[in-house]
């Protein structure tokens, strides 16, 4: 048993590392894919004179072979030396450091809402009567069509005129203050994912409800509640987990919109700002972080799934 697990984890980590390497390489190469000379690209929207360009070339070692530059860049990512932004005139690392916490908090907040409310809604929609199911279905359908910025605008409309439960703009300070300010963004960010998770949950529970092994359990006289808990929900967990994982992973990129809409000083809004100013160095770094977060979350979800269903640890190898 343990041998299978070692192999499984080994494979997962291996794929993770390879994916990150290739992703980072692709992100790095964007510098060369962008139109224009790399030094100009790094300078971003600013129009530097030849002296500045030469300085950039030196600092970024642009005359070295590309693979050397890549390795140096990669090393910088790991050690925290991510270079300087010529657009913001400060080190990339310090830019990120200042904003990382807000974004992390936002993602966790939204993630909690998605998993907590989404799964609960899906389960209720499947197990309770027709009324609950219809209401949740309608809500889900509408919510799935509501992207973050739409929800943001609606929320801002509601809470700026009349109700003032939550502050609309800014990041706040202190943990509670931050959470207060992040509530509306979290709701905006999570709503469409929440609906998706709810609908997949409902489908998964629906399917398990009519599974044959549930028939067997019923034929042996077990109570309905026990059957639901032990046989239906447990077995439905796998697809629900997978979808939740993908949703949470997708949250990272959604912070761009949520933070921008509500004026939160986080990595997402920085990403948008940097892109508008064509500061590729910052954009590269944040993208890399988000991609890494996405991939790592997915590996975690796969692992949890395998704990629940060890069949997933077996390799599917055939000639």
């Amino acid at each position: 048993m343990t041998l299978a697990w070692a192999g499984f984890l080994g494979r997962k980590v291996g794929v993770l590392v390879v994916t990150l390497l290739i992703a980072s390489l692709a992100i790095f190469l964007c510098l060369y894919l962008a139109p224009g000379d790399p030094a100009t690209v790094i300078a971003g929207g600013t129009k530097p004179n030849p002296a500045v360009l030469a300085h950039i070339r030196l600092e970024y070692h642009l005359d070295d072979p590309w693979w050397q530059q890549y390795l140096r860049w990669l090393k910088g990512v790991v050690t925290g030396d991510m270079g300087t932004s010529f657009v913001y005139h400060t080190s990339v690392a310090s830019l990120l450091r200042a904003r990382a916490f807000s974004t992390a908090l936002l993602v966790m907040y939204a993630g909690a809402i998605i998993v907590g409310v989404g799964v609960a809604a899906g389960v209720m929609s499947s197990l309770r009567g027709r009324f609950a199911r219809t209401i949740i279905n309608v809500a889900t359908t509408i919510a799935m069509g509501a992207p973050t910025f739409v929800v943001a605008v609606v929320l801002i409309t509601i809470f700026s005129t009349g109700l003032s439960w939550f502050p609309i703009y800014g990041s706040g300070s202190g943990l509670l203050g931050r959470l207060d300010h992040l509530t509306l963004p979290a709701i905006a960010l999570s709503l469409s994912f929440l609906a998706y998770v709810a609908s997949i949950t409902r489908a998964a529970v629906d399917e398990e409800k009519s599974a044959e092994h549930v028939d067997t359990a019923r034929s042996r006289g077990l109570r309905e509640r026990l059957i639901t808990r032990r046989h239906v929900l447990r077995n439905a967990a796998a697809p629900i987990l997978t979808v939740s994982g993908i949703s949470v992973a997708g949250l990272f990129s959604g912070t761009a919109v949520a933070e921008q809409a509500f004026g939160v000083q986080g990595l997402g809004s920085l990403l948008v700002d940097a892109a508008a100013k064509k500061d590729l160095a910052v954009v590269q770094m944040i993208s890399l972080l988000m991609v890494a977060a996405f991939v790592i979350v997915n590996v975690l979800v796969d692992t949890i799934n395998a704990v629940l269903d060890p069949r997933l640890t077996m390799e599917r190898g055939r000639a």
Partner: protein
Amino acid sequence: MNTTGSVTATTILEVRDLGVRLPTGEGPRQIIDGVDISLAQGEALGLVGESGSGKSTTLRSIVRLLPKGAEIDGRVTLAGADVLTLPDPALRRLRGTEVAVVFQDPRVHINPLRSVGDFLIENLVDVQQRPRREAESTVRDILRSVGISDADRRMRQRPYELSGGLLQRVMIAAALATGPKLILADEPTTALDVTTQEEVMAILDEERRARGLAMLFISHDLDLADAVCDRIAVMKDGTIVEELGAEGLRQHATHDYTRALIAARPTLDPAHTVPAGQPDSSTDEPVLSVRDLRKVYRVRPTTGRAREDFVAVEGISFDLRPGGSLAVVGESGSGKSTTAGMIVGLTRPTGGQVVIGGESYANTRLGAKQRRARGRKVQMVFQDPYSSLDRRQTVRDCLREVLDVHGHVPVAQRDDRVDELIAQVGLTSTHARSLPRHLSGGQRQRVAIARALAADPSVLILDEALSALDVSVQAQVIDLLVRIREETGVALLFISHDLPVVAHISDEVLVMHRGLVVESGPVHEVLREPREDYTRELIDSVPREGWTPRRRSSRLATNQGVS
């Protein structure tokens, strides 16, 4: 209908005028109507019928295990309780203590995410409120009696780690563990190999008798039910058409349907078979010749271990003469289907030669033209009638396509040829205009046969082509094949696990076991006097008149490993 049991103190099950309506897209449909059953304590009743006869629904009604929206009439009395009016808590108690169900496919009926042990003790602990330790020891004893010796290890394992036969024994053990008075078995061995079937049935039969349990046994196999039951009830279209004592079933059956069912099923006894095919003209060159055919797969059995070779087919050789009929017989994993796949080119052989009509096909990649040429010599009919036809093509288009692809019939005559083919397989022009979903399984297989014949092959391979069909439909298709062989002189290569059918339709037989040919020869000789142990075992496992399943008690289930 005659009911032989009267309501006595020892009647364990009494079903009176049971009717069930199930909701469908077009409104409620009557599945069973007016069913009467009476079962005394310790008695076994076999409920036999084809698909759609309502036998499963009857079984489920007895424990009220029907889907939502089902409407039930009549009366079911089980162990003195009126099942249909019982309040839920009492119904659950009944389900957990007085009766137990053994379902058909253990792999989907046992929760794959929980251990075997948890499954076994589940209702002992939760319904019968027994302490866990006591439940575990009860279960351990029962596992031993169903032939699973290393009970502790098995109980820790998950269902996917056990083979089908082992898993069904676990299902039976779970049924026995609660100490019920009645066992409901819904085709418990249909999904198993015939030798495994004998073993599992023997266990079920023996244990049931030893504990004095009554049993309602559902099957489509009349002989099997005959062997383990005291009485047989034959169901058709939702009602019981005849009820018989199990002894001398074939002589005493009076109802037309029962007699038709009996007649449709070929027997192993060579004296009863229709002499098949032409006399031995061994001077002709074989139309199909297989030499040292091999197929090896590289698999990694578990992570961490190196890839190894799995030999699916190990150097088999045989000849098929023009117009002959050869059967390749074996259980699952014997390599018979892989062999067929290699002959038609679906699987690349690892070694060996296939010579069809003089042309040699080795294991190189063939061009489209060569594949088409081969398609004109050998064709195949597959097992599953439901997915053997493109669901978007009408029958006519399907057949026409074959003619268009091969081009051996002039364009102007193709439509006529399609009509000919349709008539040849016993279908009408209405069928020709239909889509597959409007046809029954038997009809679809006829279309598949017509499609195969459209290319005018000299060899027709039938890969378990009858296994998914009802008995009566099987008989029709067998007749069709015999007739086609006479009419067109096509040679048949019949791949099957079903010995009685093979005895009926083939001249010669090849017995395969684990990739090797174990025995071969004329069908009647091999069946009458098998030389190899495996062949004998195979023949002995076939249910027939006067047969009882016997346990191989000397062979306890040891490390069978993963399925």
